[in-house]
């Protein structure tokens, strides 16, 4: 059998203690803010309302629990050496990975904020799919003939996606599109 650590799913791999400490600080701040906002909510006691149905009771409780859990995580992280100067920094992904991620997120955002609602849906979807594919399939050192062919395929894929999604959702299943 493979090593136990190798069998762990990505989310099961332990995070570095310093990262856990930052998460703990976030929980403490977020939980405190949530509890404070919940405390300021009206109780409707002056209108004969039960205190147990006050709007802030349950979110205030969750805020308090998040503070407790954040404290627990923080103490654990410190005991594991989060404040130790020798703690190794978390392994950073490569710049290429960061670029791919930023590019994908940026293109999705431009599609939602820039194209959607300004163009017909089929056209907006076609432009997005084609642009996304062309950019991610761009390879340095590729001949212009192959590059042109790939770009043409991407445009056709975009048009096919835009038209098919519009026809299937809007005409066949009567679903409204943005």
């Amino acid at each position, binding site marked *: *059998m493979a090593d136990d650590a190798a*069998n*762990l*799913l*990505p*989310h*099961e*791999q332990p*995070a570095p203690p310093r*990262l856990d400490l930052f*998460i703990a600080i976030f929980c403490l701040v977020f939980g405190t803010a*949530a509890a404070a*906002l*919940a405390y300021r*909510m*009206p109780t*409707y006691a002056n209108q004969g*309302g*039960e*205190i*147990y*149905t006050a*709007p802030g009771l*349950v*979110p205030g409780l*969750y805020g308090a629990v*998040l503070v407790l*859990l954040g404290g*627990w*995580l923080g103490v654990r992280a410190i005991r594991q050496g989060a404040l130790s100067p020798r703690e190794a920094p978390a392994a950073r992904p490569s710049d290429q*990975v960061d670029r*791919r*991620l930023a*590019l*994908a*997120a940026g*293109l*999705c955002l431009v*599609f*939602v904020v820039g194209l*959607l609602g300004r163009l017909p849906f089929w056209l907006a979807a076609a432009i*997005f*799919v084609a642009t*996304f*594919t062309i950019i*991610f*399939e761009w390879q340095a050192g590729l001949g212009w003939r192959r590059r042109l062919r790939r770009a043409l395929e*991407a445009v056709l*894929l975009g048009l096919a*996606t*835009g038209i098919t*999604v519009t026809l*299937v*959702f809007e005409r066949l*299943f*009567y*679903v*409204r*599109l*943005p």
Partner: protein
Amino acid sequence: MFDSLGQLGAAFVGFMNPHTLFNVIWATFLGIVIGALPGLTATMGVALLTTLTFSMPHNEAIMVLICIYVGAIYGGSRSAILLNIPGTPASAASTLDGYPLARQGLAGRAMGISTSGSWLGTLFGILCLALLTPVLSELALTFQSFEFFWISVFGVVVAGTLAGGDPLKGYIAGFLGLFIATIGQEPYYNYQRFAFGFTDLAGGIGLLPALVGAYGVAEVLQAMRGPAVKTISRTIDSIVPRIEDVLKYWRTIFRSGAIGVWIGILPGLGEDAAAWSSYAAARRASKEKEKFGRGSIEGLMAAETGEASSVPGAIIPVLTLALPGSAPSAVLMAAMMIHGLNPGPNLMIESPQFFYQIIAMLVIADMSKLIFGFVLVRPLIKILLVPRERLMPIVFVLCLVGAYAITSRVFDIYVMLVFGLIGFVMRELKFNMAPLILGLVLGDLLEKNLTRGLVLSSGSLLPFFTRPVCAVLSALTICSIIWSIPAVNASVRNLLRWTLAGRH
């Protein structure tokens, strides 16, 4: 007894028409493709198709969603065997023995084992669903607010403890989900909580856009981040399962089926936990331990049977308690609500025929999966070769349509984007998403039952701990939290070991 069989027969007959069977065929096919493609999960598939089936009659819509669910959980094993990448998280355990088998030139045999194990697992799960649902439903009818409060808390805590990874982060994710569920108008005075003057936010966070974001958009970002996968095992031997494989490992099949159903019933754990637990149990009990991880037929059979049987298992608490057993079943539950069904203890009273229809749907989906398992070998290899650079933008377009279509609010698209980002960041920080989603689903149930219980008891907390079911659930919840403290866990294990050693 005969009345039940008659109703079950009527449910099957009701689905035996060309229109429904056509839906079964395309939905199962689509489910297997979604499951097979790394980056697309069963949850995302069910969430997207909820939108597509919005205008269908409820029977057909739920049938399509169940076919997608069953198909996607099975489809994940194809990429696990051929690419060494689980198509869905549920198939992660299948890579351990599936891929080594493929490398030995036995990819066909591995797919045959996966098909037979998955088919038998789902059948076993359906049998358990048919037997357990009426009993649990009857028990759930005696529950009051106090019990439902603890069921919700227990769900979030157990999902945090057992869903994998760090339990403490599981609890944080669960309570974050519960907190997000409080955003918007509250149930008693329509007070707008945490809306900060935004009318859209006052309407609350829609479950479906949040799910599409957390599972769809986050997966798109995750997939585009990594380098493309190029290797695939193309040598395929016979895919027809060998009867001796099934007969030889019948104990493993039953054990894994039972584990899968049990983990399916536990709130929020889902198919991946079922597959890993079945795999671990099979290894412990096996006479061929050394083969595990090197191409063990028994290991692959255990993982596949466990994950497949947890699908009907996860539907049991949806039908009886309105409590989803897994993330895809949470979406299925939301779809049932959208279609006017009322999952929970009253379902068996209000629409008993729906219970029999669910059984029929699962059996039909399972049979359809079996047929596609034999037919879809080479076409699936071709689909697996589609580069993610071309697939992911299409998935994003579908996510966007899925988030928007239910209520036609542009705000839901922004909710999807925000949850996509939250999902991505949380995975990077080693959080499991299942407790967050379960918190979001159970938030309303928890709040209403906590406040109702407090009003009924005039603020006394005693009934929350003294009623028999509450006492058991509260004890289990507290034990679950204490068990997740490493020092306590180690002490209890040492004590047990010492006691057992003393006895011998």
